[in-house]
């Protein structure tokens, strides 16, 4: 009895430093954010006052909000499936017994090691009108110069390409790790039965990779809202918010316009979206995932 209680006390004492930090820097700000979204922004000597749902009303009428939300939607729609598919393809490839696969694995993983800011700088060089790598190659075929980041039609897609390039290598590592746990005898058993490569992938490999796919896709969803560093370096959301995303807009509202209450409101909306997506994914996948 005594020792049991003492162990409890120990346990709590051990946990308390981490817990204090977590509460102080994660839970408290989160709650505070929700609270702030119901108040006005304090300015000068004017204190924050309770304004109920006014901030949310503003949000519904805010064209820029809807614009960045749509941008973020397309950003997610392209980056999530493409980065997952690409990472799976790369993992399958470098998992095979090919010559120089060590080098290939490293090459694919490099974008992940680089900070997104550095990646952005590399891509700036690719995109630069006239001098950039892409335009130089286009020039070989006699195609005209193109301002990839400066044109509203292509700015968002330029950002999407960078994000996919950055993320695929990261996800590949998870797929590669999962592939290595699948015994080669399964492939051999399927070979003996005459299963084609594609049949084996569809009926065996892909189902066995489902837990990884779930994990990776949740990460991809979160990243599609979170990965905005390159936008700061490359387009700053422009032109005319064509490449702005929700998180980037939140940053602008909070630290360029200092409208902290409205920024809090936007944050609440973003977190709500993320939670809904994560829950949806779990329910969608759970029935289909085979856990070992």
């Amino acid at each position: 009895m005594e020792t049991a209680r003492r162990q409890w006390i120990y346990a709590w004492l051990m946990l308390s430093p981490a817990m204090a930090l977590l509460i102080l820097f994660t839970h408290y700000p989160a709650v505070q954010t929700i609270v702030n979204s119901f108040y006005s922004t304090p300015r000068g000597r004017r204190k924050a006052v309770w304004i109920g749902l006014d901030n949310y009303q503003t949000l519904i009428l805010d064209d820029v909000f809807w614009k960045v939300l749509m941008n973020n939607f397309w950003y997610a729609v392209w980056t999530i499936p493409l980065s997952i598919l690409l990472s799976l393809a790369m993992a399958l490839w470098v998992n095979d017994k090919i010559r120089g696969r060590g080098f290939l694995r490293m090459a694919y993983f490099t974008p992940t090691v680089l900070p997104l800011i550095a990646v952005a700088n590399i891509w700036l060089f690719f995109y630069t009108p006239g001098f950039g790598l892409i335009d130089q190659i286009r020039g070989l075929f006699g195609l005209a110069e193109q301002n990839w980041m400066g044109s509203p039609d292509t700015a968002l897609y330029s950002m999407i390409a960078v994000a996919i390039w950055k993320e695929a290598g990261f996800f590949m590592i998870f797929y590669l790790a999962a592939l290595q746990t699948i015994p080669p005898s399964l492939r051999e058993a399927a070979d003996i039965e005459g299963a084609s490569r594609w049949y084996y992938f569809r009926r065996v490999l892909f189902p066995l990779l489902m837990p990884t796919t779930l994990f990776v896709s949740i990460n991809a969803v979160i990243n599609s809202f979170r990965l905005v560093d390159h936008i700061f370096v490359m387009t700053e959301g422009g032109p005319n918010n064509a490449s702005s995303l929700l998180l980037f807009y939140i940053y602008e509202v909070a630290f360029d316009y200092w409208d902290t209450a409205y920024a809090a409101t936007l944050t609440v909306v973003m977190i709500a979206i993320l939670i809904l997506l994560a829950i949806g994914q779990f329910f969608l996948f759970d029935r289909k995932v085979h856990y070992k």
Partner: protein
Amino acid sequence: MTTGKSIMLRGLRKAWGETVSLKGIDLTIPEGKFTTILGPSGCGKSTTLRIIAGLEEVSAGTVEIGGEDVTSRPASGRDIAMVFQSYALFPHLSVAENIIFGLRVRRMGRAERDAKLTAAADMLGLSYLLDRKPSQLSGGQQQRVALGRAIVAEKSIFLMDEPLSNLDAKLRAEMREEIRDLQKRLGVTMVYVTHDQVEAVTMADQIVLMNQGEIEQIGSPRQIYSRPETLFTAKFIGTPPMGTCSARALGIARDDITVGIRPEALVLDQNGPIRARVGHVEYLGADAMVECRVGDETLPCRISGRTELTLGATIRLSVARDDLHAFDSASGQRLDTLPPEFAALSAAQTTAPLGSHASSTER
């Protein structure tokens, strides 16, 4: 139903860079028979089997199945089914789906597929487990599922790589019989890899004994037991294995010969020509194993459990002529005929003392 096909390996070699794992295998596996490939770990059994299956490419040589050269044919075109040591069941598929995996690949009609599944499941006693996942089965049940997959494939040749090594002793004995029965019933050609000589001896029509990438001997269990062609075979087959000692220890003046005598062939005999001292005695109930010291070497001897021997006592032993095996010490090869000096050893009535040149008291 299916009928077996013969397999012929000619001049088979396999090397991975520097490591040579098969150094030229010539082997005929008769159709419809149970052949075990036996040998110590690392001798190339699995490699041989995987080459027959088409899972491994040959470095040189040819593989023929049913008279056709299949050396460059993929695994699926060789009319073989295989049971892996690890069973290789698909963990996300039910037992039923695992068994009919190959039938689905071949797009067999549903009715036919179900009929085959039911027949195989009945044969193996798996009917009540069809909806389970492999992880919910015991080792023996998983083994049966792997067998089921091989059965419904209706191939002419079954290849098995140590299929029982993950099972406990009792289950192993059961499955041994079951697999043997199955092979007889289906009439397929079975190639069964094992490093357990008991398995090989009890199941096989033909044993292929391998050592370091080469074949030591091919023969029926009886042949291999009663007439080992090499010293390696002699020491590998039999529990406990054959005892060996130099000819000189038995009082024969030949340095180039090693003598082999099975423990059960060495009998206590008051007038026996072999004089020995009793070393360690291991009592096993029905019988006992005695370490007999001859010269400074030892020969194991199996005696009745009722006989009591005291440590260090001097005993006399004899051995029937047919139970004497002589091998060339350098090459390990069996000597086809016993040299004349050996006559003394098997002449049971002799009273010649050990150590002298016993030829004086020939019959």
